[in-house]
């Protein structure tokens, strides 16, 4: 046996392999990104034959796993919750059709949000797709739930979702584990077109069969201890009880223990859908009022279906947005208990006084910024310099932080940098206005969701400049290898895909490749591209701005280290630290000039090119 202080995503990976999963696919996204690499680590250490891939996007990942599952193998795919939107088309259909080998979808939620566009609750997607869902509260529970999910999926021939929230994924816990064994099930796809390729008439039959499965799974969930359980004493009635699940259930249980509140019963629903009706009825019948504390939306609260007894988001007892951090839950419980005429847990102000005090201290605002030496910063500088009045639709990745440089106007979803660029063009050209538009997208995002939009824009003759920021890596989510390099997650070589070939294949005739560290050339390239866009015989212009990520490929990214210093010409105009926004350049208020933070400086030398006073020079 081994013990490790394992990340929640590591515990999930362990559960996946302990369940005998043979095929594992994913697309990175916080907070899910570490699951797949951890599967690789455990699989390699145990010498398993697991097939593991970073797929190009979540839909691709889902379909790959689905095919394996209907061939009789155990398969899993994982993603962040907005990734499930990308896979939604497949996901919605999958439960109708069902599977043979266990199929588990791990959709990681980000209440907060800490690193996402939305706070959507994957459990609601599960309900929409009629996919049973398990909601773990801790790494250890997530590991156990994954195994149960595979068994349920195989028994009922339906995909099962596990929904860990960020506080499970990025929690750490000491986890003990033993030897892992290979699952040697062979692929055996049995043709059955009426099932695997069913027409609408058969879909109705499948839908009915799915609903019947749900009745049986709901019955199973009534007794699925310890995931689903209550703490009622037989024959006792209570003025107040709490219904909870997932991460908040751990907070509630900790707090009731700490404050010794055995008088408040808890119904824990770690498997909330299909809803365990009988278990919930027992609880509702024994309590005069129940407070629902669930993350992030209102799945359980609606399922309870008793307006007169239920307190929660719909009664404004629980906040409708934001993460349910423990101090918030304490406040919610105190308020609800008081409203029901019961003693609160504590007289704590939930940190209000201290947070107010700290809020008044003028502490430095530490917003996320692009790293020192980041090639994206140089690209954004040149784009703005060349076309300061353009609209800048952008996309999802590190370069979203280009908003700090004023060169990111819109971020909607993966790929929208391109599709919104054509949308802006169409909106303006209808009024006979040729609006300059410069879209930015990263290499990984371009492969994920960019090509369809580009093909559409070429086909419909929209006009804009597209800058593909190619840094050879999926940086924001933790340096996953890029398709352009052909490196696979398990270290094996795949086939590298050339961005140039794909761009040309989308019908683009105007393509330039530049190194953004050479800002002079890049500015001119953007200006030339604008001429092509405006030429009646022109079209969309694509610029690949290519420079390796300074974190992932330090030596390649900075082949010649350029130490810089600030000369007396510096007049403290602030351009370099506020507009160019390099964290290594700081304002020295006492001396009225800029100072270099040598600990942070990447020695890229780009700031020499951008200083309006030419006051930054080689040291």
């Amino acid at each position: 046996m081994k013990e490790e202080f394992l990340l929640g995503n590591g515990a999930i990976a362990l559960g996946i392999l302990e369940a005998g999963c043979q095929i594992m696919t994913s697309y990175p996204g916080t907070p899910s990104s570490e699951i797949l690499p951890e599967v690789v680590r455990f699989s390699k250490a145990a010498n398993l034959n697991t097939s593991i891939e970073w797929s190009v996007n979540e839909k691709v990942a889902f379909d790959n796993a689905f095919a394996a599952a209907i061939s009789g193998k155990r398969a899993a795919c994982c993603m962040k919750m907005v990734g499930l939107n990308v896979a939604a088309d497949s996901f919605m259909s999958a439960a109708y059709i069902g599977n043979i080998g266990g199929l588990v979808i791990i959709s990681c939620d980000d209440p907060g949000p800490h690193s996402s566009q939305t706070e959507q609750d994957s459990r609601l997607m599960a309900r929409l797709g009629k996919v049973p869902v398990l909601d773990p509260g801790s790494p250890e529970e997530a590991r156990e739930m994954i195994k149960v999910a595979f068994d349920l999926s195989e028994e009922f021939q339906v995909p099962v979702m596990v929904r860990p929230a960020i506080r499970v994924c990025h929690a750490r816990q000491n986890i003990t584990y033993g030897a892992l064994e290979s699952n040697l099930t062979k692929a055996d796809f049995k043709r059955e077109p009426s099932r695997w390729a069913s027409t609408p008439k058969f879909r109705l039959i499948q839908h009915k069969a799915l609903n019947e499965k749900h009745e049986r799974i709901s019955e199973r969930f009534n007794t699925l201890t310890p995931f689903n359980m209550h703490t009622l004493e037989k024959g006792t009635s209570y003025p107040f009880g709490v219904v909870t699940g997932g991460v908040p259930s751990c907070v509630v249980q900790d707090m009731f223990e700490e404050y010794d509140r055995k008088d408040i019963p808890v119904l824990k629903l770690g498997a909330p859908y299909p809803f365990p009706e009988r278990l919930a009825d027992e609880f509702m019948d024994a309590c005069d009022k129940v407070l629902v504390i669930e993350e992030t939306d209102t799945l359980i609260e609606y399922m309870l279906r008793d307006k007169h007894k239920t307190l929660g988001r719909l009664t404004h007892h629980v906040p409708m947005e934001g993460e349910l951090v423990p101090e918030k839950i304490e406040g919610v419980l105190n308020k609800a208990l008081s409203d029901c005429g019961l003693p609160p847990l504590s007289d704590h102000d939930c940190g209000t006084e201290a947070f107010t005090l700290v809020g008044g201290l003028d502490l430095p605002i530490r917003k996320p910024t692009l790293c020192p030496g980041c090639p994206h910063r140089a690209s954004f500088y040149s784009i703005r310099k060349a076309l300061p009045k353009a609209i800048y639709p952008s996309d999802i990745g590190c370069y979203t932080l280009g908003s700090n440089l004023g060169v990111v106007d819109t971020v909607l979803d993966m790929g929208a940098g391109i599709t919104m660029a054509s949308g802006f063009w169409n909106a303006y050209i209808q009024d006979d206005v040729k609006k300059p538009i410069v879209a930015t997208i990263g290499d990984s995002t371009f492969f994920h969701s960019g090509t369809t939009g580009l093909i559409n824009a070429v086909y419909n003759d929209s006009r804009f400049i597209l800058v593909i920021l190619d840094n050879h890596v999926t940086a924001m989510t933790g340096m996953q290898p890029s398709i352009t390099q052909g490196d696979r997650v398990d270290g094996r070589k795949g086939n590298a895909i050339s961005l140039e070939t794909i761009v040309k294949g989308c019908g683009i005739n105007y393509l330039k490749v530049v190194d953004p560290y050479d800002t002079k050339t890049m500015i001119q390239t953007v200006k030339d591209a604008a001429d092509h866009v405006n030429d009646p015989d022109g079209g969309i212009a694509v610029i690949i701005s290519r420079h390796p990520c300074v974190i992932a490929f330090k030596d390649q990214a900075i082949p010649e280290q350029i130490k810089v210093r600030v000369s007396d010409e510096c007049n403290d105009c602030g351009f370099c630290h506020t507009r160019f926004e390099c964290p290594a350049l700081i304002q020295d208020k006492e001396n009225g000039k800029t100072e270099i933070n040598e600990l942070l400086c990447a020695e890229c030398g780009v700031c020499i090119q951008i200083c309006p006073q030419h006051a930054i020079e080689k040291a």
Partner: protein
Amino acid sequence: MKTINYVLTGLGGQGILFMTKVLATAALDKGYNILGAETHGMAQRGGSVVSHLRIGDARSSLIRAGAADFLLSMDESEAYRYLPYLKKGGKLFANAPSNQFPDERTAAYLEGQNIKTWAMEAAKTAMAMGSSKSTNLAMVAFYAAFDVGPLSAADLRMTVDKMSPGPFNRTNLKIFDACYETGKQMAMGN
């Protein structure tokens, strides 16, 4: 055992994760259960980073505001930012000049909450001794000198020894011993 709660803070790049691992490993070696919560994703270099570590049998990885026993901060501003997490009677250890910390604006609050604070210039000490990257270990050593909580100075030093790879081992232990000594002097002065 009652759960002991640590909030660890600093700036991205200062090695909060390693600091957490040192405390966690020491606790694990003593046979305690541990649970932690980390910041990932958008937190970039220079951003505010926080890590929660709970020693004992807690279920939830997050520490409630007003429930932390100890706050260890590698940055002065971040020490103030996470002040609300300390409980009444909690203890704060900061990488800051000891004659300027804490800020007088927080004095009344700290006194009202009976929160004790200690500060040393851990980053300067680490840098002067040859490893600016070891501020995290310097803070662990400084904390260890006060002998509060379930982990002894000997436990922590042994863990640092075990977790510092070859070329860094000597420097790290030297820094540990120096900062432990600074802390010891302060602890005896109180």
